[in-house]
């Protein structure tokens, strides 16, 4: 079970709230202070992307954020409810922006840039998707021996 769960309507103004909550819970969980900026940025990118996907697809459901404190790590799961149509393609909505067949719903390419930033920031990253929607799962160590990239 998540330590803290957040559900917010897919409005850009709520992304900041998600960032603040994620950073606060990460700090409490013992994520290194030096990494908190990365946590804040990564969760903001993932939420911005989910908000964009919901709005583009006229989905009224909220964006889900689960913040989970584990024994030696802290994880953040950001879920959207936009079905990943071609779930058989391993690259569909993966962290690689250049994968053919990736869902590209943002004509400005900001969706791709968001994923590029997340994949540059987070070592432990999984992007999955299915008929129920997509999930970005990121985690960070909570020990003090965090190695900065």
């Amino acid at each position, binding site marked *: 079970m998540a330590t803290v769960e957040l559900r917010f309507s897919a409005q*850009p*103004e709520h*992304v*900041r709230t998600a*960032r603040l909550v994620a950073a606060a819970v990460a700090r409490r969980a013992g994520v290194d202070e030096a990494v908190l*900026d990365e946590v*804040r*940025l990564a969760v*903001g*990118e993932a939420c*911005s992307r989910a*908000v*964009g996907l919901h709005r583009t697809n006229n989905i009224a459901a909220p964006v889900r954020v689960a913040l989970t404190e584990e024994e030696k790590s802290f994880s953040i799961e950001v879920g959207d409810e936009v079905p990943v149509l071609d779930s058989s393609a391993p690259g569909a909505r993966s962290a690689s922006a250049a994968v053919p067949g990736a869902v590209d719903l943002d004509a*400005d*390419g*900001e969706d791709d*840039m*968001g994923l*590029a*930033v997340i994949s*540059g*920031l987070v070592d432990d990253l999984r992007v999955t998707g299915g008929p129920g929607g997509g999930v970005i799962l990121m985690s960070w160590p909570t020990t003090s021996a965090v190695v900065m990239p």
Partner: protein
Amino acid sequence: MDLSLSTRNVTGPAGDRTVVEVGGEIDVYTAPKLREQLVELVNDGSYHLVVDMEGVDFLDSTGLGVLVGGLKRVRAHEGSLRLVCNQERILKIFRITGLTKVFPIHTTVDEAVAATD
């Protein structure tokens, strides 16, 4: 913290420059305001822009997209868009995305205003 924007015109050794001072957070919510400001400046004939980001607390990819859009617009008029930034956490985002090769990044507004291509 919301986004704050202010502009001023400066005449430097390289000619007239418009300095856009940005403060606060540039994210998916506030970036459209910055986009509007940059579009308005270019539409009004300001093609050499210096975006001072020293007061920026947070920048995400939406903000990067707006800056890239601004660069595209000024380049269409043979203009320039220079950034002023010394904050490591902001610079890191430019490095991750490879945009340090796209934007000239200066340490002071004076340096950016004086710079020529």
